[in-house]
């Protein structure tokens, strides 16, 4: 366990979060119901919702947004459902992911997926190879491009 340098923290981060979705994290009284409920925490100790909330309260904005762990949340909502203090933990995690993307901290895998969705409308683009296989299986072909997505992101 390392030490936390509180001088590194951004004291305005909590205020900045307060108006955002899931940003009411000051209510957390560290009962750790969220961690004990989390299916990710059970297999990967990198992900710990109570710790992320604590880091946010200390204002460790950069450290959170640059981290890989915020991308581990599967948004199963177990923590949010059980939080006795009504902290919208899952919404908060989603908000952190959005912030990370805005500030250009998304990991390469996520960025590649984003590019695909923006360009093709799908994470897995369909090409003639796929349609041939579908044809063999007696399935109708799927469109290979999705123009509607361009309007969506305009």
């Amino acid at each position, binding site marked *: *366990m390392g030490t936390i340098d509180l001088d590194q923290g951004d004291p305005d981060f909590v205020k900045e979060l307060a108006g955002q979705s899931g940003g009411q994290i000051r209510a957390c009284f560290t009962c*750790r119901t969220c*961690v*004990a*409920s*989390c299916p990710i*925490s059970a297999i990967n100790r990198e992900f710990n919702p109570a710790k992320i909330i604590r880091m946010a309260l200390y204002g460790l904005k950069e450290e959170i947004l640059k981290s890989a762990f915020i991308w581990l949340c599967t948004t199963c909502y*177990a923590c949010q459902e*059980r939080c*006795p203090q009504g902290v919208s933990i899952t919404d908060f995690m989603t908000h952190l992911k959005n912030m990370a993307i805005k500030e250009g901290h998304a990991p390469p895998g996520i960025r590649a997926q984003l590019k695909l969705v923006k360009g093709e409308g799908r994470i897995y683009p369909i090409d003639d190879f796929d349609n041939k296989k579908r044809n063999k299986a007696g399935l109708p072909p799927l469109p290979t491009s999705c123009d509607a997505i361009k309007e969506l992101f305009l």
Partner: protein
Amino acid sequence: MTDVGRHPKITLHTLSEVVDVKGYVGNFHVNILKRARYVDEKECTACGDCATVCPVVRPDEFNLGLSSRRAIFTPFPQAVPSSYVINVNECLGHNPVVCAKCIEACDKDCIDFHMSDKEIVEDVGSIVVATGLEVYDPTELDEYAYARFENVLTSLEFERLINAGGPTEGEVLRPTDLQRPRSVGFVQCVGSRSAKKGGTYCSNVCCMNTIKSTLMLKEHYPDIDIKVFYIDIRAFGKGFEDLYMRSRRSGVHYLRALPGTVEEDPDKGLKVSIENTATGKLETHQLDMLVLALGIKPASSTQRLQEMLGLQLTPDGFFLEAHPKLLPVDAATRGVFYAGCAEGPKDIKESVTQASAAAARAIRLMHRGEITTEPITSMVVEEHCKSCGKCAEVCPYNAIKVDVKRKTPAVVNTAACAGCGTCAAECPFGAIIMNHFTDEQILNQVHALLEQTPKEKILAFACNWCSYAGADYAGVSRLQYPPNVRLIRTMCSGRVDEKFIWDGFLKGAPVILVSGCHIGDCHYIDANHWTEKRIKKIHKKMSKLGIRPERLQLEWISAAEGVRFAKVMQRMEVLREGVTLEEIAETIEILKG
């Protein structure tokens, strides 16, 4: 309890329900519905012969279903009166003769199926509300699996198990295999301190109850493994910390964490997952039994009683005392007092303290045979009264009676009147005189304050209990606020009559402020609701007349909000500066016309 049953001056109505309460301090008429017991309580010796022959077996409510009782039963051995009772919905009955075995068994002939419910009226001088509490139902907290696994118990069920008079005679046994558990876990704050499920408040008794339970378990079975899952242990009372220390020293593990999940083994053991705050690690604890420390919630009858007696509730649903520090056992309605958990979660000691205080308060009020009231009460001028009933509608104390149909003038009960003056403000005919705060007195103040250079003045109405005290607090705190504010004190903001406002504007007031206690904090139950309604009405009229509604402001300022008072006054000053002499002259013209 037995002493109460025997006392010559105490009448105990059991199986009874208060249906209606009328009257006021010193003269309450209480309508009571007394349910039939079907057993003569004076003759019954509680020998129990009837219960042995009764064929109807039902779960015993007192033991929370952990044992059974018959349809004729006594709730628990120490129940007062010491007499059996028949649950008529369970009894097989005798007509046509179906059963009636108990009648045959009773040597003293005290069972009577012909008894019926009775309505009783009691005239009393004061009322102590001690309607108690209910416990939180943990079924909705599915992560603790109370409804799914038999070995998850509530703190009440556990209490019956470890009680020597309980169904197992004090032997703690697992419900699934009736074996003694080798390990027991306790989960704290079940239905307490939760924004979503149960109450947001601390239930006050569960920490110490759990600590007591752990000590009893350790006394019974020194080798038992006990784990307590908690957020904070609140051992704040006299001797409480000592007890907590004893529990820890006896080897009870206190783990700071609430469980996320509870799972069951094939052998009916429980696996409880937590993240331990001390170690920062996820831990799974194997336990034979899990006890949920249930929170306290208000009794379900609270709201009905509140309506009957004209009482107030806190947002939690418990009864609200007249003052949180200085009148902690009095209700805002005179002659009504609180004792025990009806007023808020508390333990036995605190309940006894409050009950003693409530009894003493009631005696102090009643012993002289007469009461002293404030002279600030309202008076009806009969010849002006048109019996419209508006005053009776707004009175928070139901102190005014008007027969709208028969057109008899309103009558004020001065013993019940608390003096807010809302009736006088609402009366469209000027038929109510509010003693010490008459229309004339207040209008004279308005005129005097606006006599010279009204354009420079800020006219402010402040209620006695909150806003005027807030002004006082601003003063003693040496806070700066505009010196041209002119305050007029009323007992309640509800006293501020529409005509005071119009008169103020007519006399050239640039801006007027009405201020009172925050909604919910009104010292006259809810009289400030009427203030709010009235101001809204005046605002509408102002817009219609072409007077800027911003010139009349309504603000809630509490006695502790000196800073807020100063800020509001500074804002009023900014508003005042925005009103020109032409605008004032125009307003006067409009109002004259």
